[in-house]
């Protein structure tokens, strides 16, 4: 048995950033229905083991494609570009400044227990997250074109993913702060 490493192929979805989450969920269910270890209760231990591996792979594929940042990174990976989140440093000073400002306003509103300000911030961050996703989606990689590595602007793609990651994280932090009030 060969486990497919392209999650889009595995999930029978077109290889591009835009993903129909309903179809993803449905296809993942369909695959689990066939390959979940429970379907192999009467099978050999080897078959059971393979089923467990395959079932795990299906779960991983579903969770990667279900998350915008991980989905973007998987698309880059399929192009041969592996991003190292730890070593990436932001060079866009305007965006760095924006990051600082957003963080400050989160801390301020959190310390002042200002629910209204947090809600405004949340909708702002959610919007920016969506815009960052649209920007990535508009790239050639986001559109699912397969290009030769030298034609890819790795720096620009990495910057887009880093932006998405920032807004995703901040979004979560603002939500947590709101819930804590």
């Amino acid at each position: 048995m060969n486990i497919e490493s392209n999650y889009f192929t595995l999930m029978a979805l077109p290889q591009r950033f835009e993903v129909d989450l309903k179809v993803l969920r449905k296809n993942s269910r369909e695959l689990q229905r066939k390959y979940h270890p429970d379907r192999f209760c009467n099978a050999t231990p080897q078959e059971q083991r393979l089923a467990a591996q395959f079932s795990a792979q299906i779960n991983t594929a579903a969770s990667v494609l279900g998350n915008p940042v991980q989905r973007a990174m998987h698309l880059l990976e399929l192009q041969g570009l592996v991003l190292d989140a730890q070593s990436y440093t932001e060079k866009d000073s305007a965006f760095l400044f924006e990051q600082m400002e957003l963080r400050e306003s989160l801390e301020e509103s959190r310390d002042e227990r200002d629910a209204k300000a947090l809600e405004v911030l949340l909708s702002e961050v959610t919007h920016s997250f969506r815009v960052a996703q649209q920007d990535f989606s508009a790239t050639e990689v986001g559109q699912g074109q397969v290009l030769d590595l030298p034609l890819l602007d790795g720096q620009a793609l990495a910057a887009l993913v880093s932006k998405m990651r920032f807004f995703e994280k901040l979004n979560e932090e603002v939500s947590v702060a709101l819930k804590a009030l």
Partner: protein
Amino acid sequence: MALLKISEPGKSPMPHQFKRAVGIDLGTTNSLVATVPPGKAPHVIVDAQGEALLPSVVHYAEDQVNLVGQPALDMSIADPHNTLASFKRWMGRSTDDIQSNDSYDYVRPDASAGSTDASNSSSLVAVRTRAGVVTAVEASAEVLKNLAARAESALGGQLQGAVITVPAYFDDAQRQATKDAATLAGVNVLRLINEPTAAAVAYGLDKADDRYIAVFDLGGGTFDVSILQLSEGVFEVLATGGNAALGGDDFDRAIADWVLAQAAVSAADLGPSAYRQLLQEARAAKQALSEHSAVGLAVAGNGVDWAGELSRHQFEELIDGLVEQTLAGCKASLDDADLVPSDIGDVVMVGGSTRVPRVREKVALLFGQEPKIDVDPDQVVAMGAAIQADMLVGNNQERELLLLDVLPLSLGIETMGGLVEKIIHRNTSIPCTRGQEFTTYKDGQTALALHVLQGEREQVVDCRSLARFELRGIPAMVAGAAHIQVTFAVDANGMLEVSACETNTGVAASIKVQPSYGLEEAQITAMLQASHQFARDDLEVRALVEQRIEAESLLDAVQAALQADRHLLDESEVQSIEAAVTQLAAAAKQDEVILIKDAIARLGHQTEAFAARRMNQSIKQALQGRHIDAIAESVQND
């Protein structure tokens, strides 16, 4: 010539060949076994006396014949040391984990010098009885044996297998202990499934349209709430929560305390025996109040004599605080699942305490709908397990039931400074695998110790140790050069398996597993609550520890660099670097994150030029050692 008949794989050659499969609810207080007769509805198998519930109690008798169930329960007051009850809370636990305010003679790991006790059962909860040292796994096995025998005599032959239910939050060690008990009892485990999922299956919700389901399980001593998602016949546990020390027994105590207050006496005045009797009366009153609007209560003994009446309204005021706690648990789990009460399509009630009208009323109010109460709340879990068992052995080809679960608690590993790095997050769909790359810390290091933990907190001391792994046979390399890929695999039953490999050389590191013990339920709940409450303190502690580690490794690196390449610096440069080193070493001893951060920055600044010179030198050396074709290849690839 007759043609050979070949049946499709997995399908039974004879349509009526029935495989004997059962569902077992292995409970803290009571256990049950249920089955699905061919073409019929599931039902609980009763014993010779017609009883469905088997008390989860084992008595180790003088004549070597163990008593299980009601006869054992009858011995619990006369011979408490040799009568084990509520041992489900010991499953996969160590003696240190449990608060032993009971009369059992617990075996302490260091107390027994004998190699027989200490080697294997060293830390699993074990109790000395006249039959020897007994663990929860063995006591559970007695209960399972009893239920299996009951089922085999009712079904007329050996069981093909059983589905056993466990609480949704049971961790790796607890699930393993449950499986071990079945193995001991000679019961083939088809699957461990979560209690709330089984309850939903018993209501046939797997055949319903897509929806969210809340399972509210209020037993005698525990409260669990689970949020499930049903999607095209597939169940997923989205969130679980609850309180391991909240149940119907607390309602009884609330009534008893009220009586004591009315009679103006304390439990101590009354004495233990009269207080026990009062508790029994309180329980009867609680049950009667489900039907009646008021009930008479009396307490007598040790010079106390009081009689009065408790109205349903008063009773509800007594328990409202407790009921409110269960509702708070529901809200927290809804939050975890990112849902609001109106998202819930069905609410399923499990556990005897859900018979209390006030509980139903409050739950209905929270979710804006009447909860499901048609199936006996004591039996509903066993029935669901029976349906799943029937399907797994292939008796029921029509029902397309597939139960998908999630990991109840995050799995992580210990990193430097006693911190936990999460590898697989709580609520990840299982089965799943995650790879994580590790590297060596010192030159020539050939072994690596991994400590696997389960829990949500940031620090090792606040999480539960699951196992320690030792990887040996890593090829000796420079610090940081080895790439050790460790794979964590969690199976459909929620149990963990670990393997490792050095990716540069392909050498598979051998793994020595030293299993730890599980978490106590109360601790899990407490840990989860604490992780919400102390999230900010945790982060501050984490930041300090991280800064110290960074300081230490920077100091080590600078010292090593000075030792190797001092010749690249002039005397004044050496002096200013050494000054910054001294400053950082001093700062690292203090509890100020900012101080350490600043000192790190200063030393980093002082060594910038030094680092650049060292880098240039090493690139030159590297290029000198390389073959021409290797360089050509790398140029082509760039």
